[in-house]
Structure formats: C-alpha cells, structure tokens
C-alpha cells in the first residue's frame, strides 16, 4: 500500500531521498584498495578467499589502482619511509572515500614503538574504522566492513568528509 505521493503515481514508481538511494548504492559496492604491507595483509587474503568470502558484502572487487577504489584498507605496519606513499595513494582516491586501519600496527604502531614506525596511520590520513588485533582475525575485517556500511548510511552526499584533517605530512 503506497502512501502520499506514491499513491498518486501508481505501482511502478518509488520516491525516496537522494541520500538514501546513493548511500544504498555506496554501501553495497565498496571497492577496496588494499594497502597491504605486512602480516595483516595475509589475514586480509584469508578474508578474501573462499572460506570467508568478502563478496557477500559486495566488496570483492579489490582494486590496486587507487583511482578505482573508495575503501582504503591499510593492512600492516607503516614506516616513516612508507608514509609519503600512503598519503599519496590516499590522495589519488576520488571522493567519497573511507579508510580502515587493520591491526595494531596501522592503528597505533603496535609492538613497534620505535624510531622507524608511524604510531598509527591517523597521523597521516583520516581513519574511519580501527580493527584491533595482531593480526585481527579475518572475520574482524568483515565486521569493519559492516561498520563502514553503517556509517555510510548516516552520511549526506552534500557534505565533504574530513575537510579539516591535518596530518604530520600536511
């Protein structure tokens, strides 16, 4: 039973808000760019392989070209030597984009509290979801994916995200 405007337009027309329909599309077709540097990337491979099958969330189209991706998964330790590259690739991704920090290293430097390791990638780029663990189980990657989907649901296409972010390389 349609109500309001839809009642007048008949069975074949649905009305909705732009935000809702765009976000619906974004949620279920996230294209990950896997920035895999270390051990955590192996666990991402497991999340993508057949047992856990990331395609159930519509995120199986792994792109290694940042220009074709909208979800950056940082899996592994980021050293200061790697940091400018991380930033560059993030900047090459078109808006809107989301970032997941997978594992203790990407989130906080992990066990590597030393001269060469960035103490969390949020010193370089803005992060939306953090996954704990060293390494996290692959299920945790799926959990993070659902968190991103939830987050997308509440966003507006009219607003820029992370406008005022300033990292150590900016």
């Amino acid at each position, binding site marked *: 039973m349609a109500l309001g405007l839809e009642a007048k337009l008949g069975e074949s027309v649905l009305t909705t808000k732009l935000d809702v329909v765009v976000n619906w599309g974004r949620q279920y077709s996230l294209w990950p760019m896997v*920035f*895999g*540097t*270390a*051990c955590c*990337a*192996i*666990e991402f*491979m*497991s999340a993508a*392989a*057949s*047992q856990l099958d990331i395609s159930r969330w519509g995120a199986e189209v792994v792109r*290694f070209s940042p220009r074709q991706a909208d979800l950056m998964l940082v899996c*592994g*330790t980021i*050293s*200061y*030597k*790697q*940091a*400018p*590259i*991380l930033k560059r*690739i993030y900047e090459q991704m078109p808006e809107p984009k989301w970032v997941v920090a997978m594992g203790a290293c990407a989130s906080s430097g992990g*066990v*590597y*509290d*030393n*001269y*060469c*390791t960035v*103490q969390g990638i949020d010193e370089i780029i803005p992060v939306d979801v953090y996954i704990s663990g*060293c*390494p996290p*189980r692959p299920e945790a990657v799926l959990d993070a994916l659902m968190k991103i989907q939830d987050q997308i649901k509440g966003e507006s296409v009219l607003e820029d995200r992370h406008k005022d972010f300033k990292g*150590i*390389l900016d």
Partner: protein
Amino acid sequence: MNNTALELIQGAFPGAACEAVIDSVVITVQPAEVEKTLSRLKNEPSLDFGLLLDVTAIDYLDYPTKQEARFCVVYTLRSWAKNLVVQVRIPVADPEVGIPTATHLWESANWGERETFDQYGIHFQGHPDLRRILNHWQFEGHPLRKDYVIDHRQVCYESDSLEKEIKARLALKGVDDATMKDINTEIMFLNIGPAHPATHGAIRILTALDGETVVANVNEIGYLHRGFEKTAEQRTYNQVIPLTDRLNYCSSMMNNVAYAKAVESWLGIEITDRAKFMRVILSEFYRALDHLVCLAALFVDMGGLTNYWYLYNEKESAYDLISRLTGARLTSSFTRIGGMYRDFYEGWETDLENQLQAIEKGVQDSLGLVAKNRIVHDRSQGICVLPGDRALQYGFTGPNLRASGVEFDLRKDSPYYNYDAFDFSVPVGSNGDLYDRIMVRFEEIFQSISIVRQAMKMIPKGPVNVADNQVCLPPKAEVYDNIEGLASHFKLVFEGVQTPAGEWYDSFEAANGELGFHFVSDGSGQPYKCKVRPPCFYTMGGFHEMVEGEMIADAVINLSSINIIGGELDR
C-alpha cells in the same frame, strides 16, 4: 668438528687470534689485514668460504667489559661444501675511516655493508654504492648505535627518486644516450611499488625498459623496516619470540624454532626429545605452508588464478589447525627457551593427518594444472636464470640456491634435531630458472609432508620443557606451593633467562633458506644485540641480475618465485 675447523683456520692464519664458538670459528684481525684475510678465506681451495652469509657490526658503548674499540665489524662466512662457518671480527677504531670493503670478493657484501653503514654508521672504503638501505634517505644518525634513543622518530617527507642509481646502472650496462640515438628509441622508466600488487609487500622495483625488455634494474627496500633488532635489545629473550613471528609471517613457527634453538645452543641446553620432534614436525609443516603461499601467489602473477584457490585454501584450513594448537592463526609464538609453549592437544594426530592429506590433494590438483602445461613451461623454462656460482656470490640459500643446482641444505649438511634419522631427499634444480624454483618448492612440500609423517611415528612421550627453573617456568603447582618455585617464576618473568656473556651465531634451515641469529650477550636476561641473518635480504640483492635482459612480465613472476617476505627482508 670444532677442533678440526679451529686447527684449519689457526693453521692458515698462525698470527691471528682464533677461537671456536659453538659450531663456528671466530678470528679477529686488524683493519690492515682484512683484505688479505678475507680474500684468502674465499680463494684458497683448502678454505673455500664462498658464501658470505652476513655483515654486521657491534657497538660496545654500553658493554660491561671494555673492548679494544667501540665498534667491531663482523663478517660471517660459510664454506658450504666443507660445512664450516667462520666469523671474521674487525675492531674499528674510527667509524668515519672505517675498513676496506669486501664487495670485490662477494656480491652479497654490497647490501650487507650498506646495512652496516646505515645502522651503525661504519664506512667501507671503496664500496661502490654506500648509502642507506633500510632507513629513509632523510634519516639522520644510526639507530643501532647504543646512544641512539629508540623512540627518536624521524619523519620522511618525500621518497628517494633513485634517478642517479638507475642511470649509473644503465651506464654500467653500456647504455647511454648515444646508444639510444643509434637504435632510435628512448629508454622508458617504469617504477613498480612499493605499493603495488605485483610486489607482494612493500618493495620498490625501478626498471629501465627498452620496449618490454628490462635493460637495467635497481631496487629499494626498507619500506617495512620496523626496527626488530633495536626493539629486541629492550626485551628479555622470551619476549623476543613474538617479534620473531613477524619476520617471515608465512612460516612464523620456523622463526620461533630458529630463534629458540639459537639461544639454547649458547646456553648449552639440550631440549627434551619430545620437544625436538615437535619442532621438526611443526617446522616441516610450516615449510609446506610457506611454499603453498609462495606458489599460490606466483601462479596468480602468471595468470593461473585457479591454482590460488587450490593452494591457498589448504593454507587457510591449516590455520584452523594451527589456531587449535597455538591459539593464534598467524602469529604462533609457540616455542619457549628450553622447550615449547605446550604439548600437542588430544586428537592432534588425526587432525594433522587430515590436513596433510588435504594439502597433498590441493598440491596434486594444482600440479595437474601446471605440470604439463605448455604456457607454464614457456613462461618459466630458461627464464630469469641464475647459475649456481652467481647465486652463491649473492648469498642465496635455501630453495633458491638449490634450484640453481647447489645441493646445500642445513638439514642434511649440518643436521640438528635428529634430521639425520629421517629419510628424505633434497630436490635440486639444474638450470636455476623460474621453472626450477617452482618445481623445487613443489617437491619440497612432498618431502616435508613425508618428514612430518615419519616424525609423528617416531615421536617419544615425555615432557616438552627442560626441568630447569633457571630456563623454563616451573610448573604452576610449584609456583603456588613453594617459595623457590615462586621466586624462579618471578625472576624468569622479570629478568629473563640469564645468558652468559659472549657472542655467537647459530643457523637454521627455514623455508626461504638459512635463517641465522647473531647474538651478543652481556650476561643479563636481555640480548645486548640480536641480529637476524634473513635469507630474503640477500636473495633480493641478486634480483637485478636475474631480471636484466628479461621481459618485465617475467620480472614480476621472478619476484614471486624467490618468495620475498617483507617482514624478514626489512626486519
């Protein structure tokens, strides 16, 4: 063995100070003598130390006993045919002046000395390309010096262009602007990595191309340098074990075993028979897993994606087995100094056998697709060849060296943990091409499975930890009920296993080759220095020679065929 080796070296160098340490001979020489000593060690047929395993330095700034000089450079050499290891120590009075390079003797000295320069700031006179290798080019100071504070972080704002290096390499190959004008073309520079799927991690490969052919290649590593060695100096011996997981994370348990074995060899601990067998079983199981991942990724690069599912799925289900045993899928941390974390669980034997059968099936399925496949043959036979003598020059070990026809395997040549009791063969290639590297790994999987089965039949019952409260945590009943148990528990946890002062090197045949640990102990429960001899690092040092003259697409497969693992490469 010690004595004959010691006599041999002492006989050859009557004036030098020699001593035998575990399985190696340590000889101390002054900088003026270095060149002569090293070249004799390498070239005299009676000595024949053709394999330079590692170069490192020691900073004695905080060392309790006074040494001749603050720094000391150590070359670790192996005569693979005679199965001898010798360490040449050279006290360095002034790091700025340094010592003469050994790059004219071994190609592997190139990267080894660069690392020593980067980490300790020691100059090598005459080195063709002495610049940083692990730390970034904007880094100041030398992190492994004892006066470098561990958390003094230095930001890198820009990547190195490598323009100078690639141009130098081109010039070395005789390609300059005039040649290019002659053939009426231009060199194209193509940069792959450090964030590129083909590099399987963070490695940067810069190539100069003529069409699709690689004319010159230089590589940059260090993108995953995580300061393992500096961090290890701040931990007790047992606390380092979780860090070793993260070296070669595709075969974490082998690193655990190699590390524990190295510490135990110095402590003089004979671990229990059951622990030895457990270590063999788990190491061989992980060797198979490591090769599975390597081959799975390799065939993806070659365009045979189906193999990935056959091979990787078995690795994935093996994780379930491993997490049942250790509690973790990837980062096992399963050994302890003096034994193992715990025994196999009940039902392990059946689970393991099922898993072995599944691996065999997966590998057979994959072999069915590739063994007689014309495309695989055409793309791998005679491609990216490295002959045995060149492989030795670059310090190759393990399956990559064996693929080049050198039959060297520590499990056969210097057996530990009863390896001589098992019936297995060491597959050897004949050409050192891509095909040999692939097939050697396939065959090693079958050999490892066979060793696991033999060991499961032979494994005796008994404890998995040595009954020594100075080394292993006492049983909980003792900790709760008597004061001595409690005290040793506390002492072990807080201070670590007390290790007599000294320096030693110990090695292990890991999935990628010789994984060595060079320790310096000041007598406390924390290593004064803990240097890893990573097989990948030296393999990568020879990469350019394998790919120059080949097609760019083959260079990508070549990288997967030598199985470079970032964690171990950059530490």
